[in-house]
């Protein structure tokens, strides 16, 4: 039992060279020791630690009363473990040795890892390698041992699920009630446990096949009991009752409409940017001769963005209003950065459409090819219902009411076509640079003479909070991966549905790698629980950074997200230059994911309003048509049906920098 041998990569044929020559066929012959078996035999520091830490974390919040019993068990567990690790095999001649090891393997396959090596070996030798007797002996012993905790468990009333944070307020429970999860070590030999990843040192859960499945519990992936039966709604009310509600707002519009300046000024006026920083921006922008960009620099931080004077990636910031915490997402307006804007918009609940009131500018942004149109259609197809329209730079036309109404009329008819309800759209005149009508009522006499509506902050205040799907299974979309302050790396993204708590187990991406949440932060503040709609950063240790990509989905192990390369979607085709045919290569946008895909089949074209099948297998799809198509991606992606998860069932198809279609996933294969 040399602990310095690298068993994994060992060439067993070499090791056993000469072995076969002497004994012809040995017991071991056919199936020599496998790496997993070898692992059980060898002391592995990493493995040992892992099993301890797993054990500790699971029992973190056990009440004090359990301590002594706990210790007992602890000691027993420790002993068992030490037993297997430091146990020296008895000196035997080779035939005996072979018999013994095959015997131990057999026993292990029945009782699992629960029983220590030493016990098996000793029992085996006692009964002279008679499988039946050995098993009887070991199993009987185990049942006796587990009898005591089992009784305990039976006496306990169905344990109320208590969120961690409230455990202090609960009256001390009678000592017999054990809230903790029963330890696996005392369960009756359990082949049904598909070797818990934590114990086996392997991170990816294995698919178990054949009769294992019938015996295993309904879920493929083990989660802690707490995670399994959590009442999300209750937890939410406990955690968030006293807090302002969160809302995500994306700011969209044509390039140079003044989105960043407007947001920068808003942040400044609400006191989220210090005087000193603002002064710095003012000085620096003056130096470059771009003083009008001083507010935009609050959000455009990279050198490239400042030098070019445009936003390139979504900038994020927060403001607090009287009743809400608003996360501002400042989208880029430039045509080439629409992919960035889409990934921002998938996180948004509401949108603010900024249009430039300057003569000529509004028109160029609104005509075909301008981003005002495309952005508005995009956010609508991404599920944003409420839209605040900001008519910006109205000071350049002397606060003219005529111009305001002209733009409002044009936009109103367009937005109606795009699918926004009149009641969900508001129009606000303002100026991002001068700050007029931003956070205070309008002062300018030219404006006050005809406008008495709400100012921008009020408009934001008046947005309705959308319903959050808190009690659905967890889904979180990854929008960014970066090095955090501590160890490992952080994944930031938005929790689309469900709840995520500290120490929860999750599955990551299409590879369904398992990981445990080590820390949760929201706006730099550590959290114990986060809920649907939150923008969070998660630290997942022991995860390969190459397995996580922007756009992948983190899901609940109990109801994992479907992974597929081919799915059917119902799409609405926008204005396209060339028709969509079979084999049309497109870029698929799903949440933050951008993946090349091919339209591999046109199943049927559908009537836009009635949903009737107009033609089966059309040859091509032209402008403004509606159809069922099948899409195939080159790599497997995580996707949900629209009927199951609205948030994750929406896709966008883009070609050559133009959005050609938006769709909903109807079938996954």
């Amino acid at each position, binding site marked *: 039992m040399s602990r310095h041998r690298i068993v994994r990569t060992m060439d067993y044929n070499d090791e056993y060279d000469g072995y076969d020559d002497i004994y012809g066929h040995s017991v071991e012959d056919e199936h020599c020791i496998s790496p997993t078996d070898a692992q059980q035999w060898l002391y592995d520091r990493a493995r040992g630690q892992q099993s301890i830490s797993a054990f500790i974390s699971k029992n973190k919040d056990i009440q004090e009363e359990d301590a002594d019993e706990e210790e007992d068990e602890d000691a027993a567990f420790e002993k068992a473990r030490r037993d297997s690790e430091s146990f020296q095999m008895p000196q035997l001649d080779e035939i005996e040795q072979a018999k013994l090891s095959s015997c131990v393997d057999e026993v292990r396959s029945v009782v699992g890892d629960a029983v220590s090596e030493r016990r098996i070996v000793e029992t085996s030798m006692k009964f002279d390698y008679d499988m039946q007797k050995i098993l009887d002996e070991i199993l009987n012993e185990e049942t006796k041992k587990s009898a005591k905790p089992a009784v305990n468990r039976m006496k306990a009333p169905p344990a109320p699920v208590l969120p961690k944070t409230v455990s202090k307020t609960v009256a001390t429970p009678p000592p017999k009630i054990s809230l903790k999860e029963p330890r696996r070590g005392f369960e009756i030999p359990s082949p049904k446990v598909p070797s818990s990843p934590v114990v086996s040192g392997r991170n990816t859960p294995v698919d178990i096949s054949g009769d294992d499945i019938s015996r295993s519990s309904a879920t493929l992936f083990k989660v802690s009991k707490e995670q399994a039966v959590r009442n999300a709604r209750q937890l939410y009310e406990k955690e968030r009752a006293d807090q302002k509600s969160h809302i995500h707002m994306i700011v969209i519009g044509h390039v140079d409409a003044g989105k960043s300046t407007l947001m920068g000024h808003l942040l400044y006026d609400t006191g989220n940017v210090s005087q000193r920083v603002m002064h710095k921006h003012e000085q620096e922008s003056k130096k470059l001769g771009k003083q009008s960009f001083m507010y935009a620099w609050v959000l455009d*931080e*990279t*050198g*490239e*963005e400042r030098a*070019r004077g445009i936003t*390139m*990636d*979504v*900038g*994020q*910031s927060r403001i607090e209003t009287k009743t809400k915490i608003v996360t501002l997402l400042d989208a880029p307006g*430039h045509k*080439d*950065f629409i*992919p960035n804007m889409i990934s921002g918009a998938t996180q948004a609940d509401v949108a603010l459409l900024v249009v430039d009131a300057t003569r000529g500018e509004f028109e160029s942004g609104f005509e075909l090819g301008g981003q005002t149109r495309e952005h508005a259609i995009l956010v609508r197809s991404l599920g944003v219902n409420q839209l605040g329209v900001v008519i910006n730079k109205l000071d350049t036309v002397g606060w003219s009411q005529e111009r305001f109404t002209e733009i409002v009329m044009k936009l109103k008819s367009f937005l109606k076509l795009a699918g926004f309800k009149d009641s969900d759209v508001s129009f606000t005149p303002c100026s991002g640079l001068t700050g007029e009508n931003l956070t205070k009522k309008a002062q300018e006499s030219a404006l006050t003479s005809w406008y008495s509506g709400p100012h921008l902050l009020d408009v934001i205040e008046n947005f309705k909070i959308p319903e959050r799907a808190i009690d659905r299974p967890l889904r979180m979309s990854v*929008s*960014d*991966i*970066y*090095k955090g302050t501590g160890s490992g790396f952080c994944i930031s993204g938005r929790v689309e549905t469900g709840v995520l708590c500290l120490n929860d187990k999750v599955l990551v991406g299409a590879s369904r790698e398992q990981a445990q949440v080590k820390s949760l932060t929201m706006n730099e503040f550590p959290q114990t629980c986060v809920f649907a709609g939150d923008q969070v950063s998660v630290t997942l240790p022991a995860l390969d*950074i190459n397995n*996580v*990509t*922007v756009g992948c989905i983190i899901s609940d192990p109990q109801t994992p997200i*479907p992974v597929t390369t081919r799915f*059917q979607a119902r799409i609405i085709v926008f204005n*396209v*230059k*060339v*028709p969509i*045919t*079979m*084999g*049309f*290569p497109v*870029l698929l946008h799903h949440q933050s994911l*951008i993946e*090349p895909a*091919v339209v*591999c*089949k046109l*199943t049927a074209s559908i009537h836009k309003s009635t949903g009737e099948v107009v033609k*089966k*297998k059309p*040859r*091509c799809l*032209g402008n403004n048509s509606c159809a069922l198509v*099948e899409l195939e991606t080159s790599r497997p992606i995580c996707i949900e049906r629209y009927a199951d998860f609205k948030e994750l069932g929406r896709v966008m198809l*883009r*070609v*050559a*920098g*133009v959005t050609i279609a938006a769709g909903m996933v109807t*079938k*996954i*294969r």
Partner: protein
Amino acid sequence: MKLLGKYVDKGMQGNVTLMPEESEDMWHAYNLIAEGDSVRSTTIRKVQNETATGSSTSNRVRTTLTIAVESIDFDTQACVLRLKGRNIEENQYVKMGAYHTLDLELNRKFELRKPEWDTIALERIEMACDPTQSADVAAVVMQEGLAHVCLITASMTLVRSKIEVSIPRKRKGSVQQHEKGLAKFYEQVMQSILRHVNFDVVKCVLIASPGFVRDQFYDYMFQQAVKMDYKLLLDNKSKFMLVHASSGFKHSLKEVLQDPAVLAKMSDTKAAGEVKALEQFYMMLQCEPAKAFYGKKHVLQAAESQAIETLLISDNLFRCQDVALRKEYVNLVESVRDAGGEVKIFSSMHISGEQLAQLTGIAALLRFPMPELEDSDDDDDEDGAAGGADSDSD
């Protein structure tokens, strides 16, 4: 490719001796050789000798073998063609009927004998031997965090390397991570260009991206080149060209090849021509759907009434094993030509060819509208509907 000898008799039977000179020629050979042909070439074979005492020695012998081809493998990355088959000409080392795998080598001639040479095959030889066709272009399509370094030759687009780096987004107060990630990404792309682009062959290097990524990268590359003294880059600075593309994915190469500036520089390469032809087809489908058809059934019907003006056909259709099927396609091509139509054979290794292959591999622009074709609804395969029904289970 060099044509060293050609003997094709009236019955279109005969043999051709060719010498591949560059890796592209392997692709032509791949399209030329079909199962059932016989190929004669020099090769290395391991021969085992047994002495009278029973001990055996094995040594490698270079010998010339003729095999009847049974299977063909083409490695697109290394451009190696591997032919497996039985020996049909016995020599002192290799018995009749013994299996051998020929690796066609550059600058070694091989003789190809076909039971029947058709026009497509003969044309292919002509095309392969035309030296004016070769025009190599390297292209880098990139976006933040993703880049493809491709080599575009006359009949192939080869992705030499794909670089994927996850770049942290900009976030409040820490833009360093973003900029560091970006620099790392640019460095990788530059190294990949240095490694994969042979500046002796390549006429120009296209750098295509959305936004300002290409400018940033270009600046970064030459800053580094000066700093690290990369002579190779500095000497070839004039070969670099910045073009707009909408994304860093491979199929945005199509946009790159349509860019007028690129077209001017690349003159009339096959790749650009194919992109244009496919674009025309799509335009026609949009404007006059009754004059553009795809799918074998429709196109054959159109060919019957001699309506085809331009036929677009992917070369993977000619590589099929079924002799009868291949013949059908060859006949179609010939009939279109006889009727005065134009035939464009797309290389399935190009982006546009890939798309055409997905679009059933065959498409046609017609001289006159044939709306009756559209109405003849094809109700053949229902596999999709059947497959859809059982996929509901999960």
